[in-house]
């Protein structure tokens, strides 16, 4: 048993903080919601610093970090409200392709690491909603795929998309270039990030587009989902820590009745509750990020439930502690609120994961 963060991991966290901290600007995120601009704080910076190769083996030019270390960086990512297909590239892209078809996808892997390729995936929506599964058909020895996919994040930024399809009612995992896919509809999430519904129309595919084989599709889906869920939870935990720090700063500096708000016992109790909730959720997340693999669905479900429920509580309490200032657009507390609210149902809500946990 060891709850420590080692020296290398601390350095990793510090360097992620260094890269990301001066890039996030609450004003610009506010503006993104208003104007639907394409502001993606942190994304370019992490790319430029070589972070796309975090989970890739050193033999193919990556850093060879563990998933636990990746999840620590995701906490930092969440803290600064960063935006971009980091989970999509690192989990659906690098981690999965490397584990299941390294030789087949070595070229793609190298290009992801060198930022020449960018991966996106609507897996969250497909898996959770159990809808939108494009179909593969064979016509005269050639394979074609057709169907729609909804709520694909960062589509216009991406060169490839990874998704679940079906062939003769068997699930398959497909990777496809995005250039021959049509956008049907554009929508925006609560933080103004663009998502699109797309339609794939008789795109010709070959064996090269299949990830995994007939025997391991379910395992790969679980592998991706488990890792994506824990990554998303780490991001939510990072965002909540930012809320905690913002609140502590505020109550220490704000004076009422001739003393700092932080000196009132009832305020101390409230902030202690927030801190305790975040700490327990974070420890659970960090522990599970060390243990996770493809056959432990229940672990990621447990964590998602914990994040959904606990972090939802802390945002409202943080608003209360801020008084009217937290109710303003410009102060930006609402951006974290939106992030946590929104992520409650991304990659499965509490009800969905309860069924897995208790199955």
């Amino acid at each position, binding site marked *: 048993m060891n709850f420590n963060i080692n020296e290398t991991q601390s350095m990793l966290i510090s360097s992620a903080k260094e890269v990301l901290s001066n890039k996030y600007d609450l004003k610009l995120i506010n503006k993104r*919601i*208003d104007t639907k601009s394409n502001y993606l704080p942190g994304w370019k910076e992490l790319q430029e610093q070589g972070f796309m190769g975090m989970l890739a083996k050193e033999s193919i030019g990556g850093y060879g970090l563990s998933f636990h270390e990746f999840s620590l960086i995701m906490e930092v990512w969440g803290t600064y409200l960063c935006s971009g297909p980091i989970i999509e590239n690192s989990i659906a892209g690098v981690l999965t392709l490397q584990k299941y078809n390294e030789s087949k996808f070595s070229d793609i892997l190298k290009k992801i690491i060198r930022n020449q390729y960018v991966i996106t995936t609507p897996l969250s929506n497909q898996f*959770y*909603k159990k809808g939108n599964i494009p179909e593969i058909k064979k016509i005269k020895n050639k394979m074609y795929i057709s169907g729609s996919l909804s709520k694909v994040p960062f589509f216009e930024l991406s060169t490839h998309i990874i998704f679940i399809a079906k062939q003769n009612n068997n699930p398959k995992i497909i990777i496809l270039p995005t250039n021959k896919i049509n956008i049907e509809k554009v*929508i*925006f*999430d*609560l933080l*103004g990030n663009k*998502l699109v519904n797309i339609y794939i129309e008789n795109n010709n595919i070959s064996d090269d587009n299949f990830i995994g084989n007939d025997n391991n599709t379910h395992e790969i889906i679980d592998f991706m989902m488990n890792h994506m869920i824990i990554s998303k939870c780490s991001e939510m935990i990072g965002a909540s820590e930012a809320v905690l720090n913002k609140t502590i700063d505020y109550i220490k500096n704000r*004076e*009422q*009745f*001739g003393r700092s708000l932080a000196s009132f016992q*009832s*305020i101390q109790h409230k902030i202690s509750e927030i801190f305790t909730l975040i700490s327990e959720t974070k420890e659970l997340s960090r522990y599970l990020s060390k243990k996770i693999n493809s056959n432990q669905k229940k672990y990621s479900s447990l964590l998602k439930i914990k994040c959904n429920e606990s972090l*939802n509580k802390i945002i*409202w309490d943080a*608003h*209360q502690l801020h*008084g*009217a200032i*937290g*109710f*303003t*657009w*410009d102060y930006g*507390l*609402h951006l974290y*609120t939106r992030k946590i*609210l*929104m992520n409650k*149902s*991304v990659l499965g*809500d*509490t*009800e969905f994961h309860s069924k897995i946990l208790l199955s």
Partner: protein
Amino acid sequence: MLDTMFSEDDVIFKKELNSLLDKLLPINWDHYPDETDDFHWELSKKIKLSLSINNWIAPSWPKEYGGGGKEVTKAIILSETMAYRMSPGNDRFATRMIGPTILKYGTSLQKKKILSEITSGKVQWCQGYSEPNSGSDLASITTKGDYNEETETITINGTKIWTTLANRANRMFILVRSLPGSKRHQGLTFVVLDMNNKGITVNPIKNIAGKFSFNEVVLKDVKISSENIIGKLHEGWKIALDLLNFERSGIDYIGWAERCLDDLISYSKKNRLNKYEMIFDSGTFKKSVAILKADLESAKIMTYKAIWKKSVSDDIHMEPSMSKILATEINNKVHDYALEILKDKIGFIDEDPQNNFVQRILNHRLFFVSGGILAGTNEIQKNIIAQRGLGLPK
């Protein structure tokens, strides 16, 4: 459910009010009243005038000031119904704050002028209490109100903040420090002023739901005559506090919560939980809604009691504090549960403009963050209950 508390006459009043609102509100109106929006503002003015024609703006005020001369139950019904219908045009700063305060502390001239103006439906009031450094600690305000004995005028200098609807209002009640060098509750004066006075600048502030519902109000050498002082010079604190007790009943939150719960039930009857059952048919849904309903009804009865008690007794009591906490909390709980039912639909902006219910619940939940903060935070209400109500030490 608590309709049995009301007389036959009350029930008729509620029916008539609802049919007036049916006529005035656009069909299927389900927007939270937002008088900063031009359409809502015009609607608000129209509704106020129609209420005025019926003497319904302040149904329980004396007839001589344009009130309805009826029991307090009518005022309860008016606020609750207008909140339930999400109707603009209920100027709570006028009818639930400054109005009752003037009735209690105003001179006969002030009563005639101010109350009659309110019941004419032609004014909008705002409240100038909070300042950048004085929120919960209202007694620390620094906005100066220098009194000149010779000219019998007060000159106001300072900044008020979070002033709801200051950008629409033509009247403001404001607490100022009139005795230079005075501390805390001493030396404060409660005055009313015309927002068209020279020296007033209103700077809108955007809230978390993206609306400009409140403002910063900068007052620079604003001169008003002593006729605008309510009560006595330098003795405004008690009046200012008393006004807060009129403000705090939480009745609107009851109306909003009930509307949200009713709409959620309709939604649950039209939408599926899974292939086999509608949301409404699930035992978990029924149980959760039933618990919320029980909490809502008990909070509601506390808001009624708070308003009733204030109308029959002048003692300081803790009902307004309790009912404010209960009403704002149940409203948030109801909205939280609605968000839970709407699930992933709430993660998007304008996904389906036809489906206003989802956007509405989301925006309302963000907006109702303010329930526990405004009109004295819920923590301050708990202090009042413990210290003033239960007599526990400070």
